């Protein structure tokens, strides 16, 4: 018996040391500040306490599918004309909801086989089926489509991560949100200008270098632009809005449909200043292959060439500038957009981090500003202290000697709970603090159940040792049942909830699990220790 008690006590102290290690790790110094730092290193504060921004973004994956199918249409047109197959029209009937479906209408009767061959040879990612009225349907294969979507989300996460890293945010969380919903969760603790950061994250940053017709003339309206060409756009051109040369007003440019170089051709970018005016600018550098193409283009369209034209620098479908080309340029260029230093830096960063493969929409934003976080943590600590003290004092007054027992169990319960959180590097949120407070209240319940039962057995005339034994045995089933029900609902919270709520569920689960050990096992050992010192027939303080 005595030996048994000793080994149980040793186990309890072992657990105590292990979980204290969970809270503090191995502190560098044992001063107050040293311990504080050690705790802060292991238990991290959530956004609601530290301040910061929590965002959920929707990746518009259909953008990437559209890009792929647009490419397929271009290729198909080329190949069909090479093979001299006549057709009436190639289009995507429902670009928004079914961007993976291409319909070729009015194919000549003998062209069907050739069309089929072209698709198998050049567009293996599509299935082709014949329809009525000589029309053919190209549908992207399901496996290709789903892997394209997955890749788009992955690339978006990568690009966002690069951008967040270059902003110098510490401990960011960037991950997929939910399952198969193409959403991204971004948590940025301690960000002090969320508005700017949000804009930077969701900028598609698709840079394109195109030809600006009419020597880059900015027209005030689309109509004015069309009138220059007798109401019709020149072939292979589009209208794109942008800023006029003076900077502010909206203007319309006529630019080529295809680009000379685009985002993926950029190998580097940095912010700088123009040598003569010191105006902030962005330098960009092209890859070798794109550089050759760019040199051909600038050579053919420079100011003194036979066919002079301007260069349109288009960012996210907006003309930033349309400068004239002084001479042939090979692999680098500058963007002068009337930027301030901040904008120039931000744009260079975006170009470096690469374009997003699809546009992003924000679904939720939750920002905790400087005033909210600090108040919350103080209030949480105050509530926890008051609640805990009230419970400790009550137990002491109501159960006297046994109250000390319960209070030791309760403190150990808290140490194990916080230690758990330290081991799992859990994040302490405000609801998490509430979970800790609730654990105090619920944890002591088990002791009340046991003590009340012991009192009842004592009233029925049992000796102290037998009463303790019966009390623990009888209360055990009840305690188990009550813990299971609460843990089940906390588990549902943990699984379904997001962010702070999920943290609350986790805290509650840890707390209740620890409670099974402290309130039942530890408490029992303390009783046994007390009883072993007492003589037979001596009363128990309960």
């Amino acid at each position, binding site marked *: 018996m005595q030996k048994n008690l000793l080994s149980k006590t040793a186990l309890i102290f072992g657990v105590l040391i292990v979980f204290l290690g969970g809270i503090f790790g191995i502190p560098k110094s044992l001063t107050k500040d040293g311990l504080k730092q050690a705790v802060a290193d292991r238990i991290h504060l959530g956004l609601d306490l530290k301040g910061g921004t929590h965002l959920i973004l929707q990746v518009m994956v259909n953008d990437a599918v559209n890009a792929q199918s647009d490419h397929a249409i271009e290729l198909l047109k080329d190949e069909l004309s090479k093979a001299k197959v006549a057709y009436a029209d190639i289009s995507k009937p429902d670009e928004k909801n079914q961007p993976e479906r291409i319909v070729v209408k009015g194919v000549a009767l003998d062209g069907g086989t050739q069309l089929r061959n072209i698709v198998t040879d050049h567009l293996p990612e599509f299935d082709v089926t014949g329809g009525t009225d000589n029309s053919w349907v190209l549908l992207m294969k399901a496996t290709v489509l789903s892997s394209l979507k997955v890749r788009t989300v992955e690339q978006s996460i990568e690009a966002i991560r690069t951008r967040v890293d270059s902003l110098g945010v510490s401990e960011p969380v960037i991950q997929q949100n939910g399952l198969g919903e193409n959403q991204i969760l971004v948590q940025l603790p301690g960000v002090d200008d969320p508005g700017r950061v*949000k804009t930077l994250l969701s900028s598609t940053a698709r840079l394109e270098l195109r030809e600006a017709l009419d020597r880059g003339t900015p027209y005030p309206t689309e109509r004015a632009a069309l009138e220059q060409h007798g109401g019709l756009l020149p072939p292979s051109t589009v209208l794109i809005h942008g800023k006029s040369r003076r900077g502010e007003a909206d203007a319309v440019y006529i630019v080529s449909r295809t680009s000379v170089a685009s985002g993926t051709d950029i190998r580097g970018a940095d912010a700088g200043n123009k040598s003569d005016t010191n105006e902030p600018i962005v330098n960009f550098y092209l890859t070798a292959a794109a550089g050759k193409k760019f040199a051909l283009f600038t050579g053919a369209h420079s100011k003194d060439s036979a066919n002079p034209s301007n260069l349109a620098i288009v960012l996210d479908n907006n003309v930033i500038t349309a400068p004239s080309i002084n001479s042939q340029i090979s692999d680098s260029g500058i963007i002068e957009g009337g930027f301030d230093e901040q904008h120039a830096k931000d744009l260079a960063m975006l170009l470096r981090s690469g374009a997003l493969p699809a546009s992003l929409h924000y679904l939720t934003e939750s920002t905790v500003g400087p*005033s909210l976080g600090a108040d919350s943590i103080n209030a*949480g600590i105050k*509530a926890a202290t008051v609640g805990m003290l009230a419970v400790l004092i009550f137990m002491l007054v*109501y159960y006297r000697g046994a109250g000390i027992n319960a209070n030791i169990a309760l403190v150990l319960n808290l140490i194990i709970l916080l230690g758990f959180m330290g081991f799992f590097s859990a994040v302490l949120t405000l609801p998490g603090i509430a979970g800790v407070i*609730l654990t105090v209240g619920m944890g002591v319940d088990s002791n009340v159940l046991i003590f009340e039962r012991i009192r009842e057995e004592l009233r029925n005339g049992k000796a102290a040792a037998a009463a303790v034994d019966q009390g623990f045995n009888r209360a055990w089933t009840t305690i188990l049942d009550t813990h299971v029900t609460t843990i089940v609902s906390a588990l549902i919270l943990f699984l379904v909830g997001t962010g702070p709520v999920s943290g*609350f569920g986790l805290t509650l689960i840890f707390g209740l699990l620890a409670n099974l050990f402290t309130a039942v096992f530890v408490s029992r050992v303390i009783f046994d220790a007390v009883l072993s010192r007492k003589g037979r027939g001596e009363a128990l303080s309960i």
Partner: protein
Amino acid sequence: MEFFRNTNIDFLGRKWYFLTFSLIFSVAGIFSMLFWHGIPLGVEFRGGTRVYVKFTQTPNNDEIRALLLRAGLRTAGVQRYDKPEYNEVEIVLDQKETSEQDLDAGKKQIINALETNPVAGKDDLNNNDKIGFSAVRSALALRNPMPGAAPEEYDRIARQVLDFRDKQRGGVLKSIDELQGTVTPPVIDALKQSFYTSNFGGLSAQIVGPQVGAQLKQQATLAVGFSLLAMLVYLWFRFELIYGVAAVVAVFHDTLITIGAFSLTNQEITLTVIAAILTLVGYSMNDTIVVFDRIRENVKLMRRESLAEIVNRSINQTLSRTILTSGLTFLTVLSLFLFGGEVLHGFSFALVVGIVIGTYSSIAVAAPMLVAWQEWRSVRAGRGTVPLPAQAGKSKVRAKV
């Protein structure tokens, strides 16, 4: 010390009072949900924008409302947030102002509407949505108040300025001159060339698009539904089906009255309130299980007595622990309600109401339901046989005799 020693209260004899009491509260809640305040869902469930703003002086809600109205924000709800001396205001916009294409349009509109005297060419240093470290840093670099200083020096000063704004002043400066003593006069002059201060700042925001709102609402409903179902299955397994049903009815009753309390007092049901309600679903079970365990035990000991007597006896025997356990948890929840701060207000309110009602219902709803069910069965079958868990032989774990 001991409360409730050897009580002998005839709980079942008072069942009509209990029924009346429960009905009054449930029906009042349901009426409020249907005809009065509805179910006041927070922005996370209905979609919308909620912004917290801190002012330099005591804000006038009517003035703020007028400013927002002038900006076309008709449905904005404006109310004081937290303690009056914090000068904080909560502004809630309807879902209409929140679209998925431009999620924070509403927030920007609020900022613009409150910005009563903008200075051309300068930025508002208190606008923490836009002005952070990098903006202050680049303003300092531009004005260069300390010629010859290392670039890191401006990093350090920018950090100091923002720490003062955010940590010392809670996010809002009365004027740039407040920085005297933190940074040197030339730096203050440089900041004044780039910035001005408005009378508000320290923004926090919660913006939820309609799609996510609907998604969360569905998740919350499912979560509450599933946990009720899980309780039913667990008690069925541990006791008998009717025990599970009685316990779940009691917990449903608690949930209904708690949500009713939110509707009656017109407080918003936020995500954390749902967390509190789910916790209650689990916790309210505890008292019920304590009573049920005792009934199961007593059924074996008291073979001559009727079920009504057994139930009454069991409630009385466990009364002190029912009250004590709930009372102690209530104590901690009350401390959370009183001192836990504004953010947890709804959460702790739900727990305060729920724990009181949950304790009441395990005595007044769950246990009497067992008796009522038995009586109904015996009336229907002439002479009822009661499938008590001790005789049913279904439950695997039994209390030791």
